[in-house]
């Protein structure tokens, strides 16, 4: 399904598209076979949706591990934590649904009753808690518990063409909501209010779930990344960074932009003439150049070094997909970045962040898909053009 085929209005809760589901499941099954995993248990929502194709209630914040979805290699059966069948794909029968529970022993019973649990030799989980580390052996007495997260990362790393379409559609909504927030950016407004404007626009566009709720940031003129109180008013001349991220049908669309608050004295001095702008442009060019298939992801970190731009506090690249998706490229994990290679079909949000004392920071985040010939931006208005022409 392409974005243009997607109905504008969604009035019922549907499972993910069949082609999308089948392509994803085939990848998971292939990974299970390659790693000789009999049963996969995932708790993370992105992993659970990747396997099941079922939308579930969105809640904010990290979640500790619980058996949200179970896949059995021998039968291909998928079991889902859902008390109802709304949104559940028709290839997951009612008997494979298990309900919300506050009693971990009831989860153990559900797992015990899954065909193949008693004899499973290898059970993979995407995370654990100390509690479930003790309980799972009761359901899988013959099994060794192994890493299922690494397996899911391998499956999810390269997107199917259907997934790229989904992300592109999510980016459209993020762009629309961001435009509303930008229109509300005037002196005197606050980060918290701008967040409210973005959220309202997002929901009005039919999407009620954000990727992040830290939407607006009045960058500091005195410190590279100091955050002020969220209720401090925007002042004329401030560079205000926006992190516009939404989750539509499970897929993240994310982009970052920096806008300047209009003021007569600032108009006299176009941002494009500032040192920070030139450095940002050079950094951005180098980040794009780094996204070549086969190259190491540490080249993204190198782009900051070569341009002499201080490493930012946030990751330089995040994978986009069903929720946040590795790779995570950050100066804090140089070895991890060096060990990973760009491949066609990866979708990344690239972050270019440059700061100048007395001016503030220019922050841009661009979703790109890596192709055989290099990165292709997924937004309709990549950051540079409007910013360069800004006077």
């Amino acid at each position, binding site marked *: 399904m392409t974005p243009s085929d997607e109905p504008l209005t969604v009035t019922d809760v549907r499972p993910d598209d069949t082609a999308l589901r089948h392509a994803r499941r085939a990848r998971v099954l292939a990974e299970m076979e390659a790693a000789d995993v009999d049963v996969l248990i995932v708790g993370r929502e992105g992993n659970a949706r990747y396997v099941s194709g079922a939308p579930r209630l969105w*809640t904010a914040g990290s979640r500790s591990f619980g058996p949200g979805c179970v896949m059995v290699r021998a039968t291909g059966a998928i079991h889902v934590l859902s008390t109802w069948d709304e949104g559940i794909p028709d290839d997951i029968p009612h008997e494979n649904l298990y309900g919300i529970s506050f009693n971990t022993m009831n989860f153990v019973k559900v797992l015990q009753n899954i065909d193949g649990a008693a004899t499973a030799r290898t059970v993979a989980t995407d995370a654990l808690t100390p509690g479930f580390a003790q309980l799972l052996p009761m359901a899988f007495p013959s099994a060794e518990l192994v890493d*299922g997260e690494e397996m899911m990362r391998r499956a999810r790393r390269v997107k199917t063409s259907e997934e790229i379409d989904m992300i592109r559609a999510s980016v459209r909504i993020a762009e629309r909501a961001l435009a509303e927030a930008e229109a509300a950016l005037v002196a005197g407004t606050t980060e918290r209010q701008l967040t409210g404007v973005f959220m309202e626009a997002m929901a009005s566009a039919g999407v009620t779930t954000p990727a992040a709720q830290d939407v607006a940031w009045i960058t500091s003129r005195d410190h590279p990344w100091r955050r002020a109180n*969220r209720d401090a008013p925007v002042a004329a001349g401030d560079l205000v960074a926006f992190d516009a991220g939404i989750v539509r049908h499970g897929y993240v669309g994310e982009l970052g932009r920096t806008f300047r608050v209009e003021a007569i004295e600032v108009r006299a001095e176009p941002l494009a003439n500032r040192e920070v702008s030139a450095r940002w442009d050079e950094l951005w060019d180098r980040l794009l150049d780094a996204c070549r298939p086969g190259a190491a992801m540490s080249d993204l970190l190198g782009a900051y070094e070569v341009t002499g731009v201080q490493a930012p506090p946030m990751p330089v690249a995040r994978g986009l997909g069903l929720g946040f998706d590795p790779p995570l490229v950050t100066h804090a994990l140089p070895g991890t970045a060096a060990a990973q290679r760009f491949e066609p079909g990866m979708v990344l949000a690239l972050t270019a962040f440059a700061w100048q004392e007395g001016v503030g920071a220019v922050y841009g985040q661009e979703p790109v898909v890596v192709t055989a010939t290099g990165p292709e931006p997924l937004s309709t208005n990549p950051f540079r053009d409007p910013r360069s022409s800004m006077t």
Partner: protein
Amino acid sequence: MTQPAGLMTRASTNHIPPEPDLERMHRDRAERVRTLMREQGIDALVLLGNTNVVYATGAIWPLSDSGRANFEQPVAVVLADDEWPHLFSPVQEDDRLRLELPADHIHGPVYLDFDEGVQLFTSQLADLVSGNALVAIDEWTNAMRRERSILFAQDVPVDGGRVISRSKLIKTRDELACMREGLRITERAIADVHARVAPGVRQTDLTATFLRTIFDAGADANILDPIWQVMPSRIADGPWTTTGDIACPLLSTERELVEGDVLWVDTGISYAGFHSDFGRTWIVGREPDARERAQFDKWREIMDAVLDVTRAGATAADLTAAAITAAGGVKPWMPHFYLGHGLGIDSAEMPYVGSDIGEAFDASLVLAAGMVLVLEPIVWDDGAAGYRAEDVLHITEDGWEPMTDYPYDPF
């Protein structure tokens, strides 16, 4: 001065100070956590769960989608012999964190879902704890499982999450004051949404108004995709469920409301590190009819019966028994949920009342002053939908005091 509404008409609030003392709140918490650690012989707590980190450090940040939140998460380290917790966070220069921590207790970000991140973290941890220290954790990523040096000398690590679960069970007066403000913000937003409910309005439009207003009113984050569920008249007309009972909460879409729709509302926000909870039943475009009013009257009867036995020293089983008797012998709550649940840094936490943990647990759970309870009985009247609402209260020595202050309109 507005008139008290809902539960507030039944009891007054004397135990909640008008303003929280945040410094005292954090100090009291730190003392509790470290007392529990010493009782269990735990030398260090490593916490990854967002809300556990909020509780242990007092840090506040806008919670993100769980996908990102599981990878880019602040991490807390609490030492039994140090009054200040350590925070490992991406942005250290952040006034919004409202931190009172000494500078040498704030560190750069760590990434515990990556082998390299765990290795770097363990070397930092080695500077804080001795080699034979007992380190408890709340979550165990696969990368952490592979690292056996300091963190996990044991086959299965000690559960550090239980320390926080026990510590947060009883709220201090300052915590109650924060929670009440979070409820007020929620109620202000709900009032705006309520005014907008009409035929032709989409569920997502209600969400748009809710999200705009909570941030304007001071919320830190939304915590739940808001529920404005159009209830079927009969259970059989709704989705199939594992219990054969009502399916709820179902996701909101761009579905347009029509006159006579019975809406079950469920929302919550985060403020000062606490989650709020709100639930009511609304009717779209008309006044409730006689049958719907009878449902509400029955609901009040059940709620009153439960409130009559709610006090410090009562068991959860006392509450469920009162509810069942008032409902004429049936359990007036959804079997996949509960009659009531705790509320605090999490949207649902202990004490659970009437959950699938079981009747023996309910009989053993004794309410204590300072616990916060959300009571959410339902009345289902197959053929005419039903009534559901949630009221938040806190337990006192001689009873309870209301925290929700919102009318039952249009009932």
